[in-house]
């Protein structure tokens, strides 16, 4: 065999299989450098060619050509039926009767499913056993699924679903935090941690303040709504295509509800059209219902939620009322902090334990709290069960303490940035209220100092003050806020991942791992890691759909952990095969292991080299196994929830943002004039992907704190159940002057190529926008900081300016 052959095979087969797209995809994008890139040095002095590079998203060409397949695009098997939901018209009550005769009689209807048709357990909850597939006796929220219709078309199913007659004995629902507090209803026990004698610290403090901050929830608004397609196989087997961040949980719960072993169920997902936490637990129910329908009819069944239904039946970011008290010294340094997070969890526990715990873990953000009592209540309301959302509770905890910083600064008449810096974790002041030591306090200090200088904070503060002195209607505000975000699942056992790598005889590589792709670029990052390991071009690594059949018992792709965990697992799998190849080579050609390098699609050893594909073929013939699994678990972490102490986080990710806004004091409208961001992604695995996460996260956070307002009416109906009434940011909301940079520093923990997780932390950079708006309101009033709740809609801003409306 000629040596070049293998390489030729690789380029022609490794490229995207759509020949018409080949030209397009192989044109090296200007910013990515393509194949002929100069190597960079790894932190241990090795030469790296594929990681740390801004490669485009692996599906980029498919996205722009409309050929990337989402659940609803999968060609439906012959005879596929469609499912629609029947939703409760009341928020709380006893279900006395349900007349489905008209539903059954409607054109195209094949089956109608209720709780009575569940062969296994009527429960889709992740842990607490408190969430039925279909309501049985009790209705818990307006829009709760009560039945499902299976029909020949989606249109027929949706029409039929509206024909049911409900007989529900209505009870007054709990909608607000106050309703739930009055009733004393919770989904989980109250929980508190902290340290020191807070009351003593507060009473001894030279200054004291207290306040209440209301923090709104947030709809995920993933562009692809929830969808699942269930295809029955032989003898009860079922394949579920689900737009889920957690295929293993879908698998397990489908099995639980159908009353069959896990091994009968396979869940697969190639990509999601966005997840953001909204498909971590809450994709399960739709997959389960599709599976139930498939089981009942023996035919493939698809359930794709209508957008308005999606917004009504899926949970959101937890809204909270934070009641706080703080004591501080003349420099604004906090001496004691007491805060209660009253979290509205909705009708069931879902992930509220972890979410609200993370709120508490981030109640300090970047600030040392010598004495602190951090308390939480997980309130039960008759609204949809709130769930994971990028940041997983962290943003609420951080926003509250940022508000406190502004209050302290306003009281002392100091620049809020100075107050923030005075409170930063520092050597000797480096232990969090839950007992974890912040080992790298210098990182945030350096990062903020750099941003402060780069964005010209002091001069702009003077300019803003001058502007406000001469402008009557328009007022400006400025704020620079930090982010410190803990990385790891706080449920320690979730910090594990598996991967499966095959090398085929032509040298092409099949990559699979437990992580799911929802747009965050996980797949390309992990592929870069594998390409690096084998020294082959990225196009030789075929990225494949996540499936419970290849990697079992996976954790959700969440907590920003995707590349940390799966990148490591894939690297371990690839390294296993690579090591076998090295050993084979050393034996065959009598060279030392240290002499072997993999690069440029070849293997170099001594003075010789072989095409990677040729080596693989030889290894195959020598009966070397070319498939391996990899498994990774995060080291060093532990958490004792009962004691409220431990090291729940492997490390912290840092960032900071400075925002400048102008508000119109006649209407409360505002415009974001400029944003500067400096963010720590460690040694970024893929700077382009990471910049995308930072910008996208920031803009999403900005929406949460500004225009995205969830309104439930007194009957518990969500009034803002469509994009016409629920307003996420559009292109013009992003400032023209938007400066985003990566802070270059290696992760001090041994993560994959010393990178840092970047999925969630940037969302909280948007706290700067909220604080800047509050700063402008302060300028408009001239009498200190006025109460301002989140989201700061134009109405909220005007109310803050004028008092009551």
């Amino acid at each position, binding site marked *: 065999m000629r040596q070049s052959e293998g390489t030729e095979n690789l380029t022609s087969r490794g490229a995207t299989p759509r*020949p*018409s*797209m*080949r030209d*397009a995809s192989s*044109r090296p*994008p*200007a*910013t*990515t450098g393509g194949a002929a890139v100069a190597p960079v040095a790894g932190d241990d002095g090795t030469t790296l060619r594929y990681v740390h590079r801004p490669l485009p998203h692996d599906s*980029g*060409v498919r*996205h*722009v*050509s*409309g050929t990337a*397949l*989402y659940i*609803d695009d999968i060609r439906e098997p012959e005879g596929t039926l469609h499912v629609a939901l029947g939703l409760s018209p009341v928020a709380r009550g006893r279900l006395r009767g349900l007349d489905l005769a008209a539903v059954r009689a409607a054109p195209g209807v094949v089956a109608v499913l209720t709780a009575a048709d569940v062969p296994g357990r009527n429960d889709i909850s992740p842990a607490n056993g408190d969430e039925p597939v279909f309501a049985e006796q009790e209705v818990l929220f307006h829009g709760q699924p009560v039945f499902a219709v299976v029909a020949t078309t989606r249109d027929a199913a949706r029409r039929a679903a509206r024909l049911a007659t409900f007989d529900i004995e209505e009870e007054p629902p709990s909608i607000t935090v106050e309703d739930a507090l009055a009733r004393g209803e919770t989904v989980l026990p109250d929980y508190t941690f902290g340290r020191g004698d807070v009351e003593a610290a507060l009473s001894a403090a030279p200054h004291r303040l207290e306040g209440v901050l209301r923090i709104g929830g947030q709809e995920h*608004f*993933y*562009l*692809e709504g929830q969808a699942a397609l269930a295809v029955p196989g032989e003898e009860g087997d079922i394949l579920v295509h689900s737009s889920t961040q957690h295929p293993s949980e879908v698998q397990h719960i489908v099995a639980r509800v159908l009353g069959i072993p896990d091994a009968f169920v396979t869940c697969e997902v190639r*990509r*999601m*059209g*966005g997840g953001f936490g909204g498909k971590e637990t809450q994709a399960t129910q739709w997959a389960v219902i599709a599976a139930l329908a498939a089981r009942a009819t023996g035919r493939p069944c698809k359930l794709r939620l*209508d*957008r308005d239904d999606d917004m009504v039946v899926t949970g959101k970011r937890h809204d909270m009322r934070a009641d706080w008290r703080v004591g501080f010294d003349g420099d604004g340094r906090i001496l004691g902090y007491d805060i209660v997070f009253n979290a509205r969890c909705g009708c069931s526990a879902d992930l509220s334990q972890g979410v609200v715990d993370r709120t508490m873990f981030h109640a300090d953000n970047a600030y040392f709290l010598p004495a602190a009592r951090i308390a939480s209540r997980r309130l039960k309301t008759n609204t949809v069960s709130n769930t994971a959302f990028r940041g997983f509770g962290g943003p609420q905890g951080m926003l509250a303490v940022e508000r406190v910083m502004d209050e302290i600064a306003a009281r002392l008449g100091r620049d809020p940035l100075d107050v923030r810096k005075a409170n930063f974790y520092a050597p000797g002041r480096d232990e969090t209220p839950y007992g974890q030591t912040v080992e790298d306090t210098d990182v945030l200090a350096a990062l903020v100092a750099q941003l402060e200088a780069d964005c010209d904070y002091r001069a702009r503060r003077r300019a803003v003050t001058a502007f406000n002195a001469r*402008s*009557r*209607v*328009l007022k400006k505000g400025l704020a620079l806020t930090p982010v410190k975000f803990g990385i790891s699942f706080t449920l320690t056992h979730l910090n594990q991942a598996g991967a499966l790598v095959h090398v085929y005889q032509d040298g092409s590589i099949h990559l699979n791992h437990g992580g799911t792709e929802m747009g*965050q670029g996980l797949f390309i990052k992990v592929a870069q890691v594998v390409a690096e390991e084998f020294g082959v071009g990225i196009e030789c690594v075929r990225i494949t759909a996540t499936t419970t059949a290849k990697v079992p018992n996976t954790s959700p792709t969440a907590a920003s952990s995707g590349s940390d965990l799966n990148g490591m697992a894939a690297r371990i799998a690839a390294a296993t095969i690579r090591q076998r190849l090295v050993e084979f080579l050393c034996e065959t050609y009598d060279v030392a292991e240290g002499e072997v390098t993999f690069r440029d699609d070849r293997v170099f050893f001594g003075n010789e080299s072989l095409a990677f594909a040729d080596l693989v073929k030889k290894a195959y013939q020598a009966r070397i196994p070319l498939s391996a699994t990899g498994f990774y678990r995060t080291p060093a972490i532990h958490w004792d929830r009962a004691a409220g102490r431990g090291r729940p986080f492997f490390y912290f990710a840092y960032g900071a943002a400075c925002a400048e806004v*102008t508000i*119109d004091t*006649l*209407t409360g*409208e505002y*415009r974001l004039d400029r944003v500067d961001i400096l963010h720590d992604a460690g040694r970024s695995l893929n700077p382009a*992907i990471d910049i995308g996460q930072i*910008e*996208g996260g920031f*803009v*999403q956070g900005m929406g949460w704190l500004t*225009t995205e*307002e969830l309104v439930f009416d007194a009957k518990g109906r969500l009034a803002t159940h*469509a994009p*016409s009434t629920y*307003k996420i*940011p*559009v*292109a*013009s*909301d992003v400032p023209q002057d938007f400066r985003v940079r990566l802070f270059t520093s290696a992760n001090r923990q041994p993560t994959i190529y010393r990178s840092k997780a970047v999925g969630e932390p940037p969302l909280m950079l948007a706290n700067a926008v909220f604080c800047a708006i509050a700063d402008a309101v302060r300028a408009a009033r001239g009498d200190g900081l006025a109460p301002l709740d989140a989201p700061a809609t*134009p*109405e909220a801003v*005007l*109310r803050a300016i004028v008092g009551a*409306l």
Partner: protein
Amino acid sequence: MRRTIRFLRKGETVEVEQFAPRTTLLDWLRLSERSTGTKEGCGEGDCGACTVVLRRLVDGRLVPAPVNACILLLGQVDGSEVLTVEDLAAEGRLHPVQQAMVEHHGSQCGFCTPGIVMSLFALYEAGMAPDRQEVTDALAGNLCRCTGYRPIVDAAFDALARREEDPFVARRQQVAGKLAALADEADVFVGSDQSFFAAPASIEALAQLCLAHPDATLVAGATDVGLWITKALAELPKVIWLGRVAGLDAVAEDGETVTLGATVPLSRARDVLAGLDPDLGELMRRFGSRQVRASGTVGGNVANGSPIGDLAPALIALGATLHLRRGAERRSLPLEDFFLDYRKQDRRPGEFVTAVTLRKPAGRHFRAFKVSKRFDEDISAVMGAFCLDIADGTVREARIAYGGMAGIPKRARAAEAALAGATLADGAAMERAVTALAGDFSPLSDHRASAGYRRRVAGNLLRKALTEIATGDDAATRLIGHREIRHAAE
């Protein structure tokens, strides 16, 4: 009489003779043609994931328009070429806007991407120069939850600046020829007397059809009607589409007035109105999105009687007259008199709107402000329009109308009276007018705004208008939409 609809798709004429009148273009593409590149993100015209481009012959020119396929009826594409994301790459190469999107990392989850690509393609085809306002306007109807838009805007700039040769330019002539061959003056009627999609070609035919089927649903752009189908699951057995009626989309102008035909698309209305006053241009820039403006019409926006519609208050302030027709009968009335009560208009069965005539604001002082949670593509919480006739610093006549303040778009007659005869320098008169608004309106609270907010903002908008007129300046009172900025034609 033609019993089919016909359109151009991938170079071929597609003829459809049987379809439920309510069938949307998106369902046809995804379920019948089985082209799944075009996505459904919301089914209500707000997210843009379903954006496709229609090319039509307008005065012999091939004009591209991005539209929301989710709320466009299949019948409405009669006579057009339908372009979807699958059609852009040619001869093995991505279209320049696709290529730029890949290079600038403009997609993450990719679900919004086909729609974004089509919006940018429409911009590119229209020959736009790279300009931030134009690009963000073109994207106002495309939601992306992942990227934060910066890379998409960069991609748009890059593609528009580079302007590489693309096969679409070469094929334009050919497509225009094919569309010209499709154009006929036939009335279209597909279906039966009980269920049909009809598209009369003349006003006479329309008038007759409306008399014969007073229960039929009139559809102009379907940017409202589409939602009845996708969200309220309306059956709509009888649909009369106005889009083929010759002359109904005419724009006529004389020294004093402008008359906009009922089916003048909002995009065209934007161009005409922007020429009359910059605030009208800005109002129309913020009206829905480019997709909504490409389909939606002046007549539809007025006829639907929405209390939060944006055109009516502006037109009322400008002293507009509405023209209606029923059979052979024609009548005209002041626009404000058309709106009787919440969602109740002075329109009889079988009657339809033919046009609206407005008085040009020249010589008078006009201001319009739209206040919503989000600047772009949002429905007004409050919309105020002010037209003042001022001589020697004294207000001779004030016409003021608001949207969002009552069950209908409504004049502020008490405030108007308070201003009549006052001088601009008279701060007390201004405050009297603001106070008088309380007598004009008692707004409601809803999810867009509370009654208290609406009330206060209504007063503040009046203050803002009067201040700006008095000072002749808006730099100190506006965040966006400054009057000296002119908008490019749409």
